[in-house]
């Protein structure tokens, strides 16, 4: 009995290791370009906004929320104003059609008394513009599933590649200047082998891009 249990544990451990090894097949590159000095006080906050002007894609709000959550937690955490709360409070100045595209537009926007007052209420020191998307390519393989009186099962193999590419542009609200850009590119191969039961081994491409970008942004804004 204990022999079977030990074998089961051993088999489970091997499967876990295999899944862990395969699901970790993601490579992430982060590039930073600094244009100005940064730093943030305790009473100040940042807001992370997704760019949604492009016709064929838009930066997903889930990715924006993910970066915000990572920056708002852990050591050297930064106060992050939630995107939707900020956009609603600033309505109609940060809608896809009206949002500032350049720092010169921000300067003009800050000349509006109602905008400057709201920005002050939030204590926003930096605006981070996130722009990008995750693309899936190279889908190959096939899986077929059958069901019969004796049971059901799937057989086959599928694979695909995910590529997440995101830019973060950081604007200093006080000086209405761009202080830097951080580019993140993550890619990874996902696998779906099916031997009776499909076992998805998903490359956590977007999640990795989010955590690496958030970590780099946190250091950047803190000036370290």
């Amino acid at each position: 009995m204990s022999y079977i249990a030990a074998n089961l544990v051993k088999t489970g451990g091997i499967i876990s290791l295999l899944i862990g090894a395969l699901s970790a097949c993601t490579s992430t590159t982060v590039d930073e370009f600094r244009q100005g000095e940064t730093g943030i006080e305790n009473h100040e906050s940042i807001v992370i906004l997704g760019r949604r002007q492009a016709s064929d894609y838009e930066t997903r709000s889930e990715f924006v929320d993910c970066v915000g959550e990572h920056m708002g937690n852990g050591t050297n955490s930064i106060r992050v104003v939630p995107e939707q709360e900020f956009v609603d409070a600033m309505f109609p100045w940060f809608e896809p059609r009206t949002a500032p595209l350049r720092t010169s537009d921000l300067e003009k926007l800050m000349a509006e008394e109602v905008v400057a007052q709201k920005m002050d209420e939030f204590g926003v020191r930096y605006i981070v513009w996130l722009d990008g998307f995750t693309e899936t390519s190279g889908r190959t393989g096939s899986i077929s599933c059958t069901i019969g009186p004796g049971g059901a099962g799937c057989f086959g193999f599928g694979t695909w590649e995910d590529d997440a590419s995101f830019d973060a542009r950081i604007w200093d609200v006080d000086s209405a200047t761009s202080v830097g850009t951080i580019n993140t590119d993550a890619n990874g191969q996902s696998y779906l082998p099916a031997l009776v039961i499909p076992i998805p081994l998903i490359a956590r491409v977007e999640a990795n891009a989010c955590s690496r970008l958030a970590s780099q942004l946190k250091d950047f804004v803190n000036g370290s």
Partner: protein
Amino acid sequence: MTNIALNTKSYNKFASTMLGLALSACGVSNVVIEGSFPTPNINKLPLTMAVLYDEALRNFAYIEYTETGEEEFNIESGLSHIQLFDAVLPAMFDQVIIVNSMEEAKTRGVDAVFAPAIEEFQLALPAKTKLDVYEVWIKYNMRLLTAEGDYIADWVLTSYGKTPTATFLSVEAAINEAAVVALRDLASSFSLSFSEVPEVRDWLNRL
């Protein structure tokens, strides 16, 4: 005679049941646009504005057809348009009065009457466009009249909204989301461009 009457009654019941089944199986999906719209942060104009929502706007609905010409979606957005204008207009003008007729506007002594109208509504579904987004376009005719019904300005505004398929919403929810984005787009461009419309600007300068 009684037998025939009973047969007719049974036939009618059978026919209506079958019709009901047929409609529920292949019927049109009803989408009532619902969303919340924030109040704009803009400077108010010192005007008393009457708003006239006509029946066409109140009951506005758009029907999307399949490629074979069958009704696929019935999108009702009249109520959401009224909710949107009710949120936006009080932030733009000192006083806003909803009127049911031009005569009422005249007796209320307002500065002008605003009468919005929807000219065109378009929906683009991923299944037809092969793009990864649901899109909604709406074309409006914005009319501004004096309390006496004379012309002040008449301009066209278009609004656009999209929702990516990657949000994994149902088709109905994705259409609603795209329409709400389009309505927000309308609110932002209308509230920011109102005073910039040449005829409106001239009229404001004459006040």
